Every structure is written in C-alpha cells, then in structure tokens.
C-alpha cells in the first residue's frame, strides 16, 4: 500500500479523482485474482491432459509392441503355411506321378506275363496257345473278308532217333535252330509261326492261297536243309529234314476251324508215310 500525502489539503478536487482510480485498482485486483485462478486451472488442466496423453502414449506403445509381435507370429505362421502348402503340392504331384508310374509298371509286367504265356520257353517262338488264339481271330476275319487262310504243319523227321543219338541237349539246340529257320521264311506281318508241340511246328498264313503257301513251305524245307544239321541215324538223309502238310480254305460258316487243322495234319502224315522229307498239299482219297 502506497502512502500518498494527503493531497486533499492542497487540491480539494482530488478525492473526486481518487475514487474512480481506487475503484479501478479494486477491479484490477479482482481481475488479477481471477487470472491467477484461471492460470492455476489451466496449468492443472494442462497437467491432466499431459498425464492423459502420456498414459495414452504408453498404451499405444504397448499396443504397437503387441501388434508387432502378432505380425511377426503371423509372418512366421504364414511362412510355415506357405512351406507346408508347397510341400503338399509337391507331395500331391509326386503321388499322382507315382500312381501313373505304378500303372505303367503293372501294365508292363502284365504285358510281359501275357507275352511270356504265349511264348514257348525253349524256342522263344509263339506257343500252341497263342497260335490257337490267333487262328481263331484270323478265321473270323478271313470268313468276313472271304479270303483264303493257309496252314503249314511241319514235323522234324526221325527226331526221336536224333535225341537218342545226340542227346536231349543237342535235341533242344536242334529245335531252336529249326524254329528260327521256320520263322525266317514268313514274309507278311500277319503270318504267324509257332511250336505246336514236341518236334512239331505250325504256320498260319492269312490271305494266302494254297499255291503261295506251298512256296513258303518249300522255302522252309530248303532253309532247314541248308542248316546242314548232322543226323546220322536218320533213315532219310545225313542231315535233319522235315515233312510238311499244307492246307488252305476260305473259311465259311459251314466249315469248322478244326477241319482245316485236320486237313493239314492228314497231309503231314501222308508226307511221313510217303517217305518223309517232303511237302504234301493235296489229299489223296
């Protein structure tokens, strides 16, 4: 509080001027007090806001950390799933290809077995079973096409005495040579030569008439002669010879397959009876 000299003594108008000033001072004091309160409130509010922001910030940081961890976990999971997916794709493809390979492997085995079942194990040419199947198919086909079907039946002369003289191993070797020579003489892909049993061979010649079949038989006879397989106990020659019966027909519904076979067989035995080492293609009644 300022001490002013009592100026009313000097200036009678002073009290009149002083009163508004005092009032103004009072107002200013109040304003000052209000501002102090306002300032205090604002500071307090600021602190609160700051505390709140700090807390929110902490929460956000924690949340970010959680999310970063989650993202990392998800990335690991994604990586794992991607790898598993890739593994599964490879395994599925492996399985599919493996299945196909097994199919092929079984099929080849089956094919081999079927083939083996139709092959004579000694001579490695078709056996009687395969011949019978093929004969049936060709019989039907030639019947439909009205084309001739010929059969050559061939038997090694005096084969029993060959075995007795040279032994069974030599007999087997002889059979292999004859089988090979017999097959060599076939010219058409549809022709088939087979071991019919023992020392007997047979050839089926589709679309071949009797004359042409006889030419094939003559070729067979010659090529077997040319082998010059020694046979000192043969009553026919010094080398291995064969007898053959040739038969031909155009299959029709009134004829049976066995008829043609029988005809060739009859002619073969006619060749044997007539002295062996020959071809018979007609039936003498």
């Amino acid at each position: 509080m300022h001490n002013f000299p009592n100026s009313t003594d000097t200036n009678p108008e002073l009290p009149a001027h002083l009163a508004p000033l005092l009032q103004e001072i009072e107002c200013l004091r109040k304003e000052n007090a209000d501002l102090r309160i306002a300032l205090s409130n604002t500071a307090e509010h600021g602190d609160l806001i700051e505390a709140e922001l700090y807390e929110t910030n902490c929460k956000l940081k924690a949340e970010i950390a959680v999310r970063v961890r989650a993202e990392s976990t998800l990335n690991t999971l994604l990586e794992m799933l991607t790898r598993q997916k890739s593994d599964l794709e490879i395994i599925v493809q492996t399985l599919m290809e493996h299945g196909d390979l097994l199919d092929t492997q079984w099929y080849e085995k089956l094919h081999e077995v079927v083939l083996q079942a139709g092959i004579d194990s000694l001579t490695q040419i078709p056996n009687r079973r395969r011949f019978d199947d093929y004969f049936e198919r060709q019989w039907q086909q030639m019947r439909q096409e009205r084309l001739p079907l010929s059969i050559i039946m061939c038997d090694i002369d005096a084969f029993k005495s060959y075995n007795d003289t040279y032994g069974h191993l030599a007999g087997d070797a002889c059979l292999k040579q004859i089988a090979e020579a017999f097959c060599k003489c076939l010219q058409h892909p549809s022709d088939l030569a087979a071991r019919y049993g023992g020392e007997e061979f047979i050839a089926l010649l589709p679309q071949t008439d009797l004359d042409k079949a006889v030419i094939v038989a003559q070729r067979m006879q010659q090529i077997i002669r040319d082998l010059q397989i020694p046979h000192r106990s043969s009553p026919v020659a010094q080398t291995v010879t064969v007898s053959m019966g040739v038969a031909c027909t155009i299959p029709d519904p009134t004829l049976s397959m066995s008829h043609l076979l029988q005809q060739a067989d009859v002619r073969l035995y006619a060749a044997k009876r007539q002295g062996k080492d020959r071809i018979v293609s007609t039936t003498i009644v």
Partner: protein
Amino acid sequence: MKKIETEDYKAYFDPEASQVVLAGFLRLSGIDAYQPIMDLLLAAAEQTESCTVDLHELEFLNSSGISMLSMFVVRIRDSVTTKLSFVGSKKVLWQVRSLKNLKRLMPNLEITLL
C-alpha cells in the same frame, strides 16, 4: 538290428552301415499301416548323422508308401541335423521318377541310382 519281415517285403536298420534297407513289394494299406516303417526310419535317422535309405531292391511301393516316404523326407529336412541319402535302381521305373520328386522337398537330399 530292428527288422520287419513278411512274405512280401523286408525293412531293417543296420546301425553299422547307418543304413535302412527296404526291399520287396511294399503294398500296405493306408498311411497308418506304414507307421512301423516310418518309426524305423525316424529311429534310424535319430541314431546317425548321415542316414542312407537303400531302396534299390524295393520293386514296388504303393501310393501310401510314397506318401510315408515324402513325410519322412519333410521331417528330416525340418530337423536340419541329419544328412539323408537314398539309393535306388535305374531298373525300377518308379524310383527313377518319384525319388527325383522327393528331392524337390529336400534339395540337399542325395540320390544315387545303381
């Protein structure tokens, strides 16, 4: 030596050679039926740092079998520690192709075709 043997196939682990041998015709029905063989393979892989699976006399392996073998390869790949190799045969058709596919699962898988 642990050995599984039937009329169709045999499977055994020879610890001295660090080698599992599978031979014959493996046609077991379903992945569960292959569990004993899977166990034998995993046990062998655990006992050695470098494990060889000799398949060259395994003429036939059905689809469940190749699944089991695929899963075995994945397990070994993920374990990291074991080196794995397969011995097959060029004469057995499935081995030529399917073993190569397994290499896609584990690029450092060693395959020898006799």
